[in-house]
């Protein structure tokens, strides 16, 4: 088999994707259509994120890939290997060393900086998909910023559950204009979207959409005056590093109801444990 082009995709495709990314950055929160390619992995495994990463990478980049915060899960490992093989770039598990981070469903606990790009894998880019099935209508809603319907979704949550029960993919308003689905990150991570120094790119492969948050963009989670947004997490400390402020996974340890809570961000947890916390 002949050599892969750098980062798998051909240069014309990368150019097309970069155009979509630039447009997305110019219009924060707007879903830019792009000609999503077949990737050597199934839809739902991050084909959108992989294409955005491929179009973003340069040979000097250091790539980190996380899946639910972890560097060592199947999705993260296979995407990291994919780029090691097709781009020959350096990879890392350390958030601080990485220049490009592809993520599924988390934002790293360690604050990002201006030299980094965070690439999200997005299954459903349209925040109103389950309220309004017609794409023609949702596009019109976005175009006219006619977002009453979005608020209805949160109203229904409170009416049914007594609080806003949406705990992930919590809708946000970007720069006072577009309402955006932040991908299925826990709402605990929503405040990290706001005023973030890094570039945040969102790729949805199956849905063929790219959208973006330029650095230091104002991102506000939707809420009601009397039911304000709150970033929630399990009310425990990490069993490994003891952090009381990081997002936790619940791990079932036996059949007798035993469980432990550990950081979902493995790199953050390991650094803290090493540091002798």
């Amino acid at each position, binding site marked *: 088999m002949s050599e892969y082009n750098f980062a798998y995709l051909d240069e014309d495709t990368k150019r097309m994707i970069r155009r979509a990314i630039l447009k997305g950055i110019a219009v924060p929160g707007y879903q830019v259509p792009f000609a999503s390619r077949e990737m050597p992995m199934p839809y739902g495994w991050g084909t959108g994120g992989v294409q955005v990463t491929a179009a973003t990478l340069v040979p000097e980049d250091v790539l980190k890939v996380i899946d639910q915060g972890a560097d060592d899960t199947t999705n993260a490992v296979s995407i990291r290997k994919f780029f090691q093989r097709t781009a020959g770039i350096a990879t890392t598990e350390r958030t601080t060393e990485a220049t490009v981070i592809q993520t599924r469903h988390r934002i790293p606990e360690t604050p990002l900086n201006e030299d980094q790009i965070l690439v999200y894998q997005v299954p459903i880019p349209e925040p109103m998909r389950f309220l309004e099935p017609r794409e023609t209508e949702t596009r019109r809603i976005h175009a006219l910023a*006619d977002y009453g319907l979005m608020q*209805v979704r949160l*109203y*229904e949550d409170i009416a049914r559950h007594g609080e806003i029960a949406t705990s992930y993919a919590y809708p946000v308003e970007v720069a006072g204009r577009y309402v955006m689905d932040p991908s299925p990150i826990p709402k605990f991570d929503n405040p990290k979207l706001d005023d973030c120094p890094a570039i945040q790119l969102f790729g949805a492969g199956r849905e063929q959409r790219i959208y973006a948050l330029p650095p230091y963009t104002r991102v506000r989670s939707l809420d009601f005056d009397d039911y304000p947004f709150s970033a929630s997490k399990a009310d425990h400390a990490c069993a490994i590093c003891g952090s009381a402020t990081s997002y936790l996974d619940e791990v079932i340890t036996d059949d007798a109801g035993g469980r432990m809570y550990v950081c979902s961000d493995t790199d953050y947890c390991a650094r803290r444990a090493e540091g002798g916390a």
Partner: protein
Amino acid sequence: MAMSAAALEMQDVPGPLLSVRNVGKRYGARIGCSDVSFDLWPGEVLGVVGESGSGKSTLLSCLSGQLRPDEGEVIFDTRDQGPRDTLLMSEPERRRLGRTDWAFVHQNPRDGLRLGVSAGGNVGERLMANGARHYGRIRATAQDWLTRVEIDPSRVDDRPRQFSGGMQQRLQIARNLVSGPRLAFMDEPTGGLDVSVQARLLDLLRGLVRDIGLSVVLVTHDLAVVRLLADRLMVMKDGRVIESGLTDQVLDDPQHAYTQLLVSSVLQV
């Protein structure tokens, strides 16, 4: 009419709420409606009757901005800018009008409600679209409106799917009137309901129209409904208005042959 004209002068109303001039819509070679003109004054209910295919629904769609007429003007007296041709408005402006000053009641409540959303959410949608962000107040307003349309406010969290046909229709009316519109378009609001439910709905509509001074363009083929609700009547046939006047006058002394046929076709029980 002399009475109501005097009453209008006392309220110091400068002009009609809605002025329709020569509105026409063609579907290819066929005429949807043609050369329709009328004025609708604040607080007035205008009935539009005619058989199926007479163009009354097309007319209603043209007036309410759902369909673009090929010709004519639809001038609405807006709150902030005075009379404006709604056909020349930008789409955001028209939509804003559609969720504030206008109401549209569909014949089938399924078209006008979100069936997967609770009654409270349905009523509250307009409020939220207009910027309301206080859950408690939105919910209180929704419950108040449920009461006004004779739905038990304890059902505020039930989905419309669990409501009877008459209740769904009343919910649709509440959902539309919650923003305090001045003009309502109604397309056969009592269609498909049995007569006792119809009677209650008509009673309710009559009360609401009087209480909030709503102007209504009411499309129906049911002459009894217009007799009860409408101040004035337009009779349409083949896309044209063939007769118009005070409701009682048109129904009691129809001039046009078709209107005579229409009136005499009503079954007497």
